[in-house]
């Protein structure tokens, strides 16, 4: 059997006396969606940033299996290689779309940026891809030349997804992708993401505090509390039959409409 797409081993991070993450390990296979859930301050985002190479870890390793089949350790990659990976094989969907988008550039430019970074120099083709992706994320085609500043929150989030997926990445990190959106917009976005993940065979590491989002999008789940993984397993198993007291508390505190 080949190595997993992503292998995280003993990842730890401290901020002063606080342990943000304590020796976290997991593996992620190709096309698998993993949700990291927990309350605010449990270290979810820190973990995500460490895996994505945005934050150096104090200890532990992240191994990523490249397209050529060779697993490389993230910590010893050069900055250039890491950034190239980020542009080509990875995507990062931020909670705040303004962080993941260029707000002073049109939607088309936002989607086309990754293509241009990869050396595409044909305006017509770039524009056609941008148009295509705009439609795939259900944004009206006539908004192609509008700035994301004129977009609603849900549209910005969908634009951010299009911008990330245009180069067909293998692994996408998502940090609370539905945070701050109203429920009906959330539902549409989740539906869209679920479709794209399945269609493109994306591997996803999804950080969320919303168990419903985790249930809809992920195959497996990690429950974090105070920087530690207290429970993990198949999403349905963990959410339907939580073992750890904290997970039971989390599951029982979901409001039923």
């Amino acid at each position: 059997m080949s190595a997993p797409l992503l292998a995280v081993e003993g990842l730890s991070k401290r901020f002063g006396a606080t342990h943000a993450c304590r020796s976290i390990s997991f593996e992620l296979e190709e096309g698998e969606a993993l949700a990291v859930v927990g309350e605010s301050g449990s270290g979810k985002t820190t973990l995500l940033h460490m895996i994505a190479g945005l934050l150096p870890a104090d200890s532990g390793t992240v191994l990523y299996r490249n397209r050529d089949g060779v697993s490389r350790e993230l910590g010893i990659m050069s900055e250039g290689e890491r950034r190239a990976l980020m542009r080509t094989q990875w995507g990062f969907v931020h909670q705040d779309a303004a962080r993941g988008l260029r707000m002073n550039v049109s939607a088309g430019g936002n989607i086309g940026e990754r293509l241009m970074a990869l050396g595409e120099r044909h305006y017509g083709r770039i524009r056609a891809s941008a148009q295509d992706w705009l439609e795939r994320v259900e944004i009206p085609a006539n908004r192609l030349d509008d700035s994301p500043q004129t977009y609603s929150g849900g549209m910005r989030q969908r634009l951010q997804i299009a911008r990330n997926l245009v180069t067909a990445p293998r692994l996408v990190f998502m940090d609370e992708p539905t945070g701050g959106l109203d429920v009906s917009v959330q539902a549409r976005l989740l539906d869209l993401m679920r479709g794209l993940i399945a269609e493109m065979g994306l591997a996803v590491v999804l950080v969320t505090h919303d168990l419903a989002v985790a249930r809809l999008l992920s195959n497996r789940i990690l429950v974090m509390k105070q920087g530690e993984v207290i429970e993990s397993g198949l999403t349905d198993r963990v959410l339907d039959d939580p073992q750890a007291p904290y997970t039971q508390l989390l599951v029982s505190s979901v409001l039923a409409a």
Partner: protein
Amino acid sequence: MSARAYNFAYLDEQTKRMIRRAILKAVAIPGYQVPFAAREMPMPYGWGTGGVQVTAAVIGPDDVLKVIDQGADDTTNAVSIRAFFAKTAGVATTTQTERATVIQTRHRVPETPLAEHQILVYQVPIPEPLRFLEPRETETRAMHALAEYGVMHVKLYEDIARHGHIATTYAYPTRVAGRYVMDPSPIPKFDNPKLDDCPALQLFGAGREKRIYAIPPYTQVVSLDFEDHPFERTKFDSACAFCGATDSFLDEVVTDDSGGRMFVCSDTDYCERRQAALEKEAAE
């Protein structure tokens, strides 16, 4: 006054050495922006403090200096910088392009082709071509270091999406020697082809931003573009109203309040000498 009022070319020798070191590094790495400790000059920022410091560092007693501002030798900026060096360095000055050994310029490259013994010094307001899309200096430095220039095309993409063609007409981004993307200073894109394979040494000084960069002689300078929207030099429909030139960059001059206008060469030296030649021809 008995003692000399100024050191040669205003700056003290240590400062000139510091600037020369930056220039050498800039020449060694074409298009790379070298930080340097720009000094306060007796002129406001935006008036060519960077160019003046570079000129002061490269000029010698035997040099002949020409200063142009938007192509003209007779505008305030050009006249005062020329007077500045005439006073502080005692060098000869000229308005004739081929007689000059050092030419300091703001916003134009002379129409007369440059030669190997000449140095062209540009005044640069914002040296960072990526600044439009990336405000963080740490990030733009990393982008230069890793040659991540995709965003530069995003700017051109935006132009075409908005205007149907690449609407950037000045400070048009270039790639130097196949490596660094460089802002050629706010020269019209009409002048961009002159930068390529130029026999003269081209130095760029940004005083406020404290950066020096260079294009060594005979270096490849390519203007960025798209395959289906190639770089095009600005074309003019009319000829110069004074000298009839059709191959030079023209300024539009409004002549009255009822919409009258004319187009004249922006390079005054080029225009005047063409006029003189025409007169001579007519007299013969």
